């Protein structure tokens, strides 16, 4: 992946086992979010191949990739602010619906069935993430921590196999991020998810993830279990600066 002569990602290679909780870390500008944008089809890789259960993702549009089973959250929360919390979760469900438009306009029994099912699923997700009390509020009016959680709920509504979380713990206090940690590992079990997450909070990643990939200037400098990564001299150098003085 390169931007006008500038390599944003180089030789990036990552294989995730089903059910894995994988952390993507690295200093600012290392290309972590770029990995997400490539995986979700917003950027096209210049070389290489992306596969999801053997299905090639190269060249597919973001909506198509989403429907194949990759969902994401955004670093700078991007909810549908004017829609209610419930509606936010309903949107991805529509993306997978096959209901013809005339049924919606004519309010056929098929429409009501589909609507009922979508609403049940949405309520269930809201309940699971303890967002039920806010269901009718505009998403933009939720406090920050709840917005982060709603983004996860919305991503789960897309029924992903692979969930990409971009700094889910950013801006949360220690208690909140501890709660998020247990929530994520519980969700991973319940929805049999594979999770790839970007995070700056080292404690968070080290506790939660089974494996880590460390990026620096678009290059993978380490890919291993947290304990091994922690002591890797190249990782320490990347975080502390080349001369080790910073």
């Amino acid at each position: 992946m390169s931007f006008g002569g500038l390599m944003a990602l180089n030789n990036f290679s990552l294989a995730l086992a089903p059910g894995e909780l994988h952390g993507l870390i690295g200093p600012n500008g290392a290309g972590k979010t770029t990995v997400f944008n490539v995986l979700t089809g917003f950027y096209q890789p210049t070389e290489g191949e992306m596969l999801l259960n053997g299905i090639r993702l190269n060249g597919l549009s973001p909506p198509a990739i989403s429907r194949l089973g990759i969902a994401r959250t955004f670093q700078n929360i991007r909810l549908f602010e004017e829609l209610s919390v419930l509606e936010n979760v309903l949107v991805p469900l529509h993306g997978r619906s096959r209901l013809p438009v005339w049924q919606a306009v004519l309010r056929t029994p098929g429409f009501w069935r589909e609507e009922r099912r979508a609403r049940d699923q949405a309520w269930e997700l809201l309940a699971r993430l303890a967002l039920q009390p806010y269901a009718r509020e505009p998403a933009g009016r939720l406090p920050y921590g709840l917005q982060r959680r709603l983004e996860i709920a919305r991503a789960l509504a897309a029924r992903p196999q692979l969930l990409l979380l971009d700094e889910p713990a950013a801006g949360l206090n220690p208690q909140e991020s501890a709660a998020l940690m247990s929530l994520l590992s519980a969700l991973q079990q319940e929805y049999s998810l594979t999770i790839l997450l970007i995070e700056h909070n080292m404690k968070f990643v080290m506790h939660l993830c089974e494996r880590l990939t460390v990026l620096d200037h678009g290059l993978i400098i380490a890919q291993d279990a947290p304990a091994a990564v922690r002591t890797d001299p190249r990782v320490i150098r990347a975080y502390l600066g080349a001369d080790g003085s910073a």
Partner: protein
Amino acid sequence: MTWAGFAQQLINGISLGSLYALVAIGYTMVYGILRLINFAHGDFLMVAAYLGIFGLAMFSLPWPVAFLAALAITGLLGALLERGAYRPLRRAPRLSLLISAIGASFLLENLALVFLGGRPLPFPTPAVFAGSFQVAGLYIPRLSLLIPGITLILLAALFVLVSHTRTGMALRALAHDWEATALLGINVNRLISLTFILGSILAGVGGLLWAMKYPQVNPFLGVLPGLKAFIAAVLGGIGNLAGAVVGGLVLGILEVLLVAWFPAWSGYRDAFAFVLLIIVLLASPTGLLGESIMEDKL
């Protein structure tokens, strides 16, 4: 068509294209900074044309005085428009900003209609700009030389301003990155006002020249030239000053040649620019030279 005929049409096309270019510059300057199509921009042609009539016919001023006064007032009105209709909406959704621009445009046109009436007024073209001469069998109105000449001088002045002065540097910085410019301690509001003043003055020059070329002034005079100039700006890549000039010339020349080669199609003349716009956007949604129009901001 003979070579002489072709040359004749080319001269007409260049003079029309220069007018489009003058107006297109204003669109592109405002767009470069506010990312807004200033729908009311075309109406400043009409404002300047009427002001020209007042100066010349009502107050019997000598033409340089009348024209300079008309341009000064047009420039101020441009700044006033930004103050009243655009500045309060700077943090609003872009849809609102555009709607405000449309409202401002209708307001200007219909204020003119209310106060000046719908009947076209003749423009008393000063003698300096009138007349024509013949060279090598070609009929050349004096205006056809003056229009490109004046355009050229003004554009040269603008390029010097933008690329060789501190103000110009600040303007370019503002077009590039709004927040960083504000952080540098540059007065963003003053720069934006300046942009509108300059753009409106250029439109005003366009309006005066237009009124001498087609000496009937009515409240809706600026609508079509305005739209076409905007299309010229898109063709050249909006936000790009040189592109606006190229786009204006290309559009003007093509339009004149189309009518010359296919006289039966002259009724479709006003649709031509839009069809061209649709084709260009189909081929490349970024315009010919411009930035991406539909990018995902991630």
